[in-house]
């Protein structure tokens, strides 16, 4: 079974001047459980539009999105979204934010909080449970947002440049965390980034998109085991080949 599947999807928008602008043109991709698929491409290649279609927020003009189904007729979506906008609620503490999926399912505060404390501990946020998001560093905020995804029943994670605003060290630690979670919890992760080294470090498969309208111009499978060595020859080899493909795509 393939949790995330897009088949030949296309999407265009009307610009303010009334012109039709094609954002995505014929993209197909599949992400199976326990794997990470990265989309890299130049700015404006429709990466975010692809994620929004996968999340069900946008209907494709053509093609189809095989939406993953929730079990037992639950209303909660099996898709979880983490972008620079889909962040924590600032009026809730870290613990309340992480427990939000359980509270919406109808669990009482005490029970939900009790169940979410171990998640916070496992993310190294145990001491920050009662702090508000604005009292946390950027890395801690993104970790807490991942905690909210963990507490939800989402098994398809759609991530749009989630680690962009972070410093290099924090970013690498969160990348390791994501790799670990994806295999431990059999998550299907679709990860949008413009950082090629991030894609090569994280992904089982990388799709390179062209500049607008977005099309997949190359697909690269990365067989290497984990953790990956950023200094190895094969790592820089993949980096180089993606960079070259991107250069051609932009040209």
């Amino acid at each position, binding site marked *: 079974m393939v949790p995330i599947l897009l088949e030949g999807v296309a999407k265009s928008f009307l610009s303010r001047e009334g012109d039709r602008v094609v954002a995505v043109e014929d993209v197909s991709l599949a992400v199976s459980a326990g794997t990470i698929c990265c989309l890299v491409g130049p700015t404006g290649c429709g990466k975010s539009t692809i994620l929004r279609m996968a*999340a069900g*927020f946008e209907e494709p003009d053509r093609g189809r999105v095989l939406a993953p189904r*929730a079990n037992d007729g*639950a*209303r*909660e*979506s099996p*898709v*979880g*979204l983490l*972008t620079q*906008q*889909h*962040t924590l*609620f*600032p*009026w*809730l503490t870290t613990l309340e934010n992480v427990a*939000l*999926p359980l*509270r*919406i*399912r109808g669990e009482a505060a005490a029970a939900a909080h009790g169940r979410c404390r171990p998640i916070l501990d496992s993310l190294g946020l145990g001491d920050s449970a009662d702090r*508000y*998001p*604005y009292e946390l560093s950027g890395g801690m905020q993104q970790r807490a947002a991942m905690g909210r995804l963990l507490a*939800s029943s*989402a098994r398809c994670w759609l991530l749009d440049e989630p680690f962009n605003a972070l410093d290099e060290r924090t970013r690498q630690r969160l990348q390791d965390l994501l790799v670990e979670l994806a295999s431990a919890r059999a998550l299907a992760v679709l990860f949008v980034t413009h950082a090629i080294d991030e894609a090569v470090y994280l992904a089982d498969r990388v799709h390179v998109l062209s500049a607008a309208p977005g099309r997949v111009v190359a697909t690269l499978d990365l067989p290497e085991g984990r953790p990956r060595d950023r200094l190895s020859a094969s790592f820089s080899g993949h980096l180089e080949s993606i960079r070259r493909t991107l250069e051609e795509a932009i040209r």
Partner: protein
Amino acid sequence: MSAAAGPGSRRADRAVGGWLLGAVIPSLVLAAWWLAARSGSAVVPTFGEVWDVLSHPLREPPDLQSPSLAFSVAITLARFAIGFSLAVVTAVPLGIAAARSPVLERLLHPMVELARPINPVVLLPLLTVLLGLTSPATILFGQRAAWRHAVLDQMPLAMLLILWYGAFFPIYLAALYGVRSIRTSRLETLHLLGAGSLQELRWLLLPHALPAIANGMRIALGVTWLVIIAAELFPGTRSGLGYMLCTACKTSEYEYTFAAMILIGVIGLLTNGALRRFERAVGHWQAAER
């Protein structure tokens, strides 16, 4: 001096300095009052006379057709609280509903914009003609028996309605814009988690709009406080701070006028301060949002 005179004490110095600066003009006003009273003015009472009124709140004014000062304050506060609460419980749900429903917003918008600039006090004579002396007491116990229920009988519907009217619009607009400024991404997050509309209200709409609503309530409070005192000056009222102030002026008992004015200022100051604290408490997260 030594280490004790660090930045902390400098901050304290600045706080004291600010406080002193703020006390300058009130002191000048008091000085002018004192001078006016000393010069033997027939209108301006001495500090002592006003203090005598303020320090005996339960005394029935001997030469004045008005209940005691304490009763006047209580009745004014009760009218104020009822009118203001009615506005909160109607304006908040309507504002939130209008923010989520374009049809409702379109429906209400012209009326809101038309009615908002009308000073609520100008509606009072018309409403008094329409409603007469209808009060909760006349509704509950009938015209004849109403006088037995002194407090309820002192709440003319016309007055409660204009208080509601004065407070409604700032709160309605605050709730409307408070909800409208919610980012779509926050709604999307909730929808992915399977939230229904009640949960949306509980987890997103209310907490997000609450700082704006608190601000609207503070503005409404200022308006309502002006309106209630003005409304009590009108004929047909037999109690309240505004009534006492006005009656005392007519019968030259100026110490009561001054005492009432002081209380009006102090109560306005205190209620505003309380709502400002509420506003800060519910909006603690907002500074980081901007």
